C-alpha cells in the first residue's frame, strides 16, 4: 500500500474508539502535501476522542525557547492538547533540546505531540527519542517521478469514489504535474466540480489553457512530424503571451523519453516504466511515436533543441524564431511511416 492510501479517515473507523492515536506521532518525509494530510488526519482522529482538542502549532523558524515545555505543562483547566511542531529537520539547538527534555519526562495524559521532519540528519536525536518512546511513524515520501504522480492522482479519484480514464490522468499530469500541491488541488477541484467519469476532455476544459499543456500540444505535434500544426500552436501560444522557455523544456523532456524508451528494448510497459521512473502511459505513448524515429534522428533533434534553448535564453526577438527552426529540424528528422 502506498503511504498516502493509509491516510484518509472515514467516520466508520473512528466511532467509539477511546484513544486511537498514541501520544507521540512522527511524520517523516519531504512531501508537504502528504505530511499536511497526515497531520490533518491525526488531528481528526484525536478530535473523536478529545472533542475540545486545543491545537498548538510551532515551527523551527519562529521558535521561542521554552515554548514546547510551556505548552506541554499541565494547565489549570486540563485541556486536551495537540502540539504540532513543524520543520524539526531545521530545528535549532533550543527546539531540539526542549523536545528532548519533554520526551524525557513524558507527556501529560490528554496531550499529543506531533513532530514533522522532512529529512536529513539535523534533529535526528529527536527522531530517535520519539521512535524509541514508541511514536507512531507516518511517512510522507517524495512524489517525484511521473509514475508516483500517476499513482497519487489515480488514488485521489478512487478515494473519492470517482473514476478517471488513463487519458485524463496523463493530461492532468502534463498540465499541473510539476507541482504536487497543485496536482492535489487540481484533483480535488475536478472531484468537486464535475460528475461522472473524468476523461481527457474534462481535464482539458479545466486545465487546457495552462502553459505546460500548451508545451505538450506543441511537442505532440512536433514529435508526430506535423510541422504546420506545431508551428500554428507555437505561434498561437506566443501571441497569447506564453514564454517559449517551458515549451522548449517540454520538447526536451519528450525527446528524452523517446530515447530512453527506445533504448529500453522490448518488454511490458509496466516493467519498462518502473525501470525508467516513468508512468506506463508515458511508455505507451513513446512506443506509439517511436516507429517514426531513428536513434540518430532523435540525437540530432536534441542537439537542435539545445542550440535553440541557448538562443532563447539569450533573449531578444530571435527567441521565437529559434524555437520555430528547432521544430522544423525535428519534424524533418521524423521519417514518414
Amino acid at each position, binding site marked *: 500500500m502506498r503511504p498516502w492510501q493509509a491516510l484518509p479517515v472515514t467516520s466508520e473507523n473512528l466511532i467509539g474508539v477511546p484513544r486511537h492515536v498514541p501520544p507521540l506521532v512522527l511524520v517523516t518525509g519531504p512531501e508537504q502535501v502528504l505530511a499536511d494530510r497526515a497531520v490533518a488526519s491525526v488531528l481528526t482522529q484525536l478530535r473523536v476522542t478529545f472533542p475540545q482538542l486545543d491545537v498548538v502549532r510551532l515551527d523551527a523558524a519562529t521558535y521561542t525557547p521554552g515554548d514546547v515545555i510551556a505548552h506541554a505543562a499541565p494547565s489549570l483547566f486540563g485541556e486536551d492538547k495537540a502540539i504540532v511542531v513543524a520543520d524539526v529537520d531545521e530545528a535549532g539547538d*533550543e527546539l531540539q533540546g526542549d523536545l528532548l527534555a519533554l520526551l524525557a519526562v513524558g507527556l501529560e495524559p490528554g496531550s499529543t505531540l506531533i513532530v514533522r521532519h522532512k529529512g536529513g540528519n539535523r534533529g535526528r536525536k529527536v527522531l530517535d527519542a520519539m521512535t524509541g518512546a514508541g511514536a507512531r511513524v507516518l511517512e510522507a515520501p517524495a512524489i517525484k517521478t511521473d509514475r508516483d504522480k500517476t499513482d497519487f492522482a489515480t488514488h485521489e479519484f478512487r478515494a473519492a469514489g470517482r473514476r478517471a480514464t488513463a487519458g485524463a490522468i496523463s493530461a492532468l499530469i502534463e498540465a499541473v504535474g510539476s507541482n504536487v500541491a497543485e496536482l492535489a488541488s487540481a484533483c480535488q477541484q475536478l472531484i468537486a466540480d464535475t460528475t461522472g467519469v473524468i476523461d481527457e476532455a474534462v481535464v482539458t476544459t479545466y486545465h487546457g489553457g495552462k502553459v505546460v499543456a500548451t508545451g505538450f500540444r506543441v511537442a505532440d505535434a512536433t514529435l508526430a512530424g506535423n510541422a504546420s500544426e506545431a508551428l500554428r500552436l507555437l505561434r498561437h501560444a506566443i501571441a497569447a503571451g506564453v514564454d517559449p522557455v517551458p515549451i522548449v*523544456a517540454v520538447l526536451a523532456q519528450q525527446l528524452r523519453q523517446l*530515447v530512453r524508451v*527506445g533504448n529500453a528494448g522490448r518488454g511490458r510497459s509496466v516493467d519498462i516504466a518502473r525501470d525508467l521512473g516513468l508512468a506506463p502511459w508515458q511508455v505507451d505513448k513513446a512506443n506509439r511515436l517511436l516507429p517514426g524515429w531513428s536513434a540518430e534522428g532523435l540525437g540530432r533533434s*536534441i542537439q537542435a533543441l539545445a542550440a535553440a534553448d541557448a538562443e532563447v535564453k539569450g533573449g531578444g526577438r530571435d527567441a521565437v524564431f529559434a524555437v520555430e527552426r528547432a521544430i522544423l529540424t525535428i519534424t524533418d528528422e521524423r521519417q514518414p511511416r
Partner: protein
Amino acid sequence: MSVWRDVVGQEPALAVLQRAVTDPAALTQTWLFTGPPGSGRSIVARAFAAALECPDGGCGDCHECRTAYDGTHADVDLVSTEGLFINVKQTRSLVELAARRPSVGRWRVIIIEDADRLNDHSGNALLKAVEEPTSRTVWMLCAPSLEDVLVTIRSRARHVRLRTPPPEAVAELLVRRDGVDPSVAINAARAAQSHVGFARRLATDEGARIRRRDTLRLATSIHGVGDAVDAAADLVKIADEEKERSLDDRNRAETQRLLETLGADPGARTQPPHVRAQLNALEKEQRTRATRVGRDVIDRALTDLTSMYRDALVRHTGSGRPLVNEDHVAAVDHLAAIMTSEQLLGCMETIGVARERIDANVAPLLALEAMALDLRLPR
C-alpha cells in the same frame, strides 16, 4: 613568515609582498591580485592583510594574524558577492568604510574577492577611493585575469600575478598540512589540476574520488544515442551529490567559525539570542548560495572530463609529460588509440560549448545531452 604557510607555489609574488610588508612607509595602497581559479587569490590577499596587521610582519600565530586571515579582524573587510554583480550601493558603503581610520590595527584593509564583478556603475563609484586612498587604507582586489577588471580600476592598482601552482607544491602542502600520504597527494594534486581545495577533497574524501572516477568513465563509455542521454543524466546526478557534499562541509565549517568568532560554545544546547540571530542569517546566506555552487560543480566535472581528452592529446605528442589522470592511464590510452588529434580537440571544444551554454542558463541536462551526443566514440 608562517602566515604565508597556506600559500602554495607563488614564490615570485611572495617576494614582492614580503618586501612591501617590511617597508610600510613605501606601501602601495591599491593592489590587484589575478590568477586562475585555485591559484589562491583570496588566500594570498588575506595572508597579506594579516602580515600588514601583525606586529611581527606575519607571524601567523598572534591574534592579529589569525583574525585578519579568517576575516574577523575589525579592520579587515572581506567583500564577495553571490550575485552576478557588485552593486553601487555595496561599493558606496565600502567607500565610506575606506574613509575611516583603522580602529585597532595599523591598516584598514578592504579585500574585494571578486573584483571581476564590478560593473561600470559600481566600478566608477569606487574609482576615487581607489585612486587616492585615505592614508591608512589598503585595497586588495582579486580577479581571475586582468581582462576581467575594468580598465579604469586596473590602471590604478599595483598588479600581482599569481600562477597555477606546480602539482608538486600542492602535494607538499597536502602532506604537510593535512597529513596526506605523499603518493596519494601527488595524484590528487595532478587530478585537481593544482586546485588546492579540490586536491584536498580528492585526497581525503573517498566519495569525491568515486564521483570523479564516474565522471571520467563517461569519456570511454558513450557509444549510442541512448548512452549519451544516460551519461548526461549521470553527470547531473554526480554533480548533485558533489554539491550536497561540498555544501555540507562548507556550511558546517562556516557555522563552526561563526560560533568561535562570537565566542559561543559550539557544543552548547542553547545559544543566546544574538548568536541565534547571526546563525539564522548565515543559514539564509548558505541557502542562496546553493544555486551558484551547483553550477560550479558541473563546471568542475566538465573540467575533469576535458582533462581526459587533453591527456590523450599529450599521449599523441609522445612528450612523456605527466598526465592529469595518472590514475586512469588505461582509459587515456584507449582514447588516444581510437581517436585522432582532431577528434580529441573536437571533444574538448564540445565540452566548452556545453559549459558556455550552462553559463548562459540553458537547462543543464539538455546542454549536457547535446554534449554527450558529440562525445560518442568513433565506431
